[in-house]
């Protein structure tokens, strides 16, 4: 499956940020949809992103031409499926710049990755051991640690955020001592858009011998990630937020740390030898991939990575920043709009409240104008509590969005306010 071949490369010189949407929108069939009689404006990318034809086709082609269970037989289709699956692992390795493909585990996504780590790392933690989270974590990086706390009595410490939505890094060293077993932090906040200084965090944590887990779910759609440069110990993300399929994601772990982890689920493919007396487990990554794997998903994820590699990511990021700036200015010009998250380094995510308009009503009224946003607590209830609000509306953008779409969002907000005030 050669995905990028027919299209001109778009990562060469001359790709100005402003030219990106026109160039890429034809690749995303869903962007041509109408919603309530209007062209769809999709600003719920942080919940899930849309898929380019290359990804849709890669998944369909697998089922049409190559479908077989991976690692299980010697017939031709099994060989094709297995090779494609392992090639996808190599693609993910390159995508995050891991040292070896054996450091990449295919899992269902970020949530499953963190649960695996809480289960595996927590196996020999004891009451009084500490995991450090931050106040801006998604529930996926809170609840697994609480489940572990119920089982073992570990302590959960929370690194605070400032009103502007940045981590209070100065408070980190005080939380690091011989009882601290892990720092688990999000790379990019799904509510505030804040991009956290991971390299700085790993430096501080490693100075105390503490490993760092990074939730990369919101980072991978927007920036090049280099796990070696950041020197994080674990990094996880979900395919569906980076233009790939749902139900597939990856966990990166440093080889020696993965090797020290116990299995996650038991079953086929994660063993080397089974007798009723004793079972020997496979080495990573197979140790953590029990049962029939989501081969179509992994292949679709690789197609998404290939697709992204045809883009100039720096130009895409510059375009996203232009979208963010236009949305921020537009909301400020409306007046009566409170924006949560004012960090100088932000992904194109903007959470806000309109005075006198409940987020949920706003969501419905924006939908009436064809504009899709997320409303609610964004799976970050502790962060909502910090700001003292029950819910916000969030517009999250991707490189395929246009400045005109941002203007339609701003107009739709003005319309909603008119209706409700």
């Amino acid at each position: 499956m050669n995905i990028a071949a027919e299209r001109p490369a778009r990562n060469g010189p001359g790709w100005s940020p402003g030219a990106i949407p026109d160039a890429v929108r034809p690749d995303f069939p869903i962007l041509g949809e109408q919603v309530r009689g209007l062209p769809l404006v999709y600003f719920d990318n942080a919940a899930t992103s849309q898929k380019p034809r290359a990804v849709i086709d890669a998944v369909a082609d697998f089922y049409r031409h190559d479908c077989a269970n991976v690692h299980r037989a010697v017939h031709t289709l099994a060989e094709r499926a297995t090779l494609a699956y392992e090639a996808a692992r190599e693609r993910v390795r390159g995508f995050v710049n891991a040292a070896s493909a054996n450091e990449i585990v295919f899992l269902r996504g970020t949530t499953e990755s963190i649960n695996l780590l809480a289960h595996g790392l927590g196996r020999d933690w004891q009451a009084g051991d500490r995991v450090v989270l931050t106040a801006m974590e998604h529930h996926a990086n809170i609840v697994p640690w609480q489940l572990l706390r119920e089982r073992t009595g570990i302590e959960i410490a929370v690194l605070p955020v400032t009103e502007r939505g940045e981590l209070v890094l100065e408070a980190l060293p005080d939380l690091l001592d011989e009882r601290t077993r892990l720092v688990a932090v999000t790379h990019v906040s799904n509510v505030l858009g804040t991009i956290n200084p991971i390299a700085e965090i790993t430096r501080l944590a490693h100075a105390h011998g503490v490993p760092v887990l990074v939730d990369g779910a919101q980072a991978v759609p927007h920036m090049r990630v280099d796990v070696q440069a950041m020197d994080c110990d674990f990094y996880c993300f979900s395919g569906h937020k980076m233009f790939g399929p749902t139900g597939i994601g990856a966990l990166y772990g440093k080889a020696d740390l993965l090797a020290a982890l116990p299995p996650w689920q038991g079953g086929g493919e994660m063993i080397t030898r089974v007798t009723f007396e004793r079972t020997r487990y496979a080495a990573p990554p197979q140790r953590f991939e029990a049962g029939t794997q989501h081969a179509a998903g992994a292949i679709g994820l690789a197609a998404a990575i290939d697709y992204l590699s045809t883009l100039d990511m720096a130009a895409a990021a510059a375009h996203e920043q232009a979208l963010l700036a236009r949305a921020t200015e537009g909301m400020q010009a409306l007046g009566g709009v409170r924006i949560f998250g004012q960090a100088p380094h932000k992904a194109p995510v903007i959470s806000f409240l309109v005075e006198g308009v409940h987020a949920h009503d706003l969501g419905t009224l924006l939908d009436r104008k064809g504009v899709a946003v997320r409303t609610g607590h964004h799976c970050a209830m502790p962060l909502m509590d910090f700001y003292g609000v029950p819910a916000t509306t969030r517009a999250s953008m991707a490189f395929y969005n246009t400045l005109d779409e941002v203007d339609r969002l701003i107009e739709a907000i003005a319309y909603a306010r008119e209706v409700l005030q």
Partner: protein
Amino acid sequence: MSDEMEDLYQEVILDHNRRPANFRPMPDANRTIEADNPLCGDRLELFLRVEGDRIEDVSFLGSGCAISVASASMLTEHLKGATVADAEALFAAVHAVLTDEKATVDEERLGNLMALSGVRRYPMRVKCATLSWHALKAALASRRPDPVTTE
């Protein structure tokens, strides 16, 4: 506003949202229940003073979207002074009009509550409208009801 939106955000609803009725604490309540809709962060508290089989007083507090606030506000107007049996019957009627396209509705009895019927076309919003009604039902069923959630 488009016709479709008028359906959902009728003037009655907007008015109740701007100036909800019986939006106050009730120090002598003998039934209190919290209700929340985690999907959108609506959080309401319903207070009732039930004497014998009569609802002597009903009020609510909290924050929510226009639909949930208006629904709670209308609930309190309808049920002040009603019997428990009336309240249960009204719950059933409201529930039917909100969730069942084919339900036969007693429009006269529902009165301004008919304004809520527009949510039927917004499946994601039905829970907003039913939130306070589920709270009512739980409060009538038990003296110490568990908090209600509609997700």
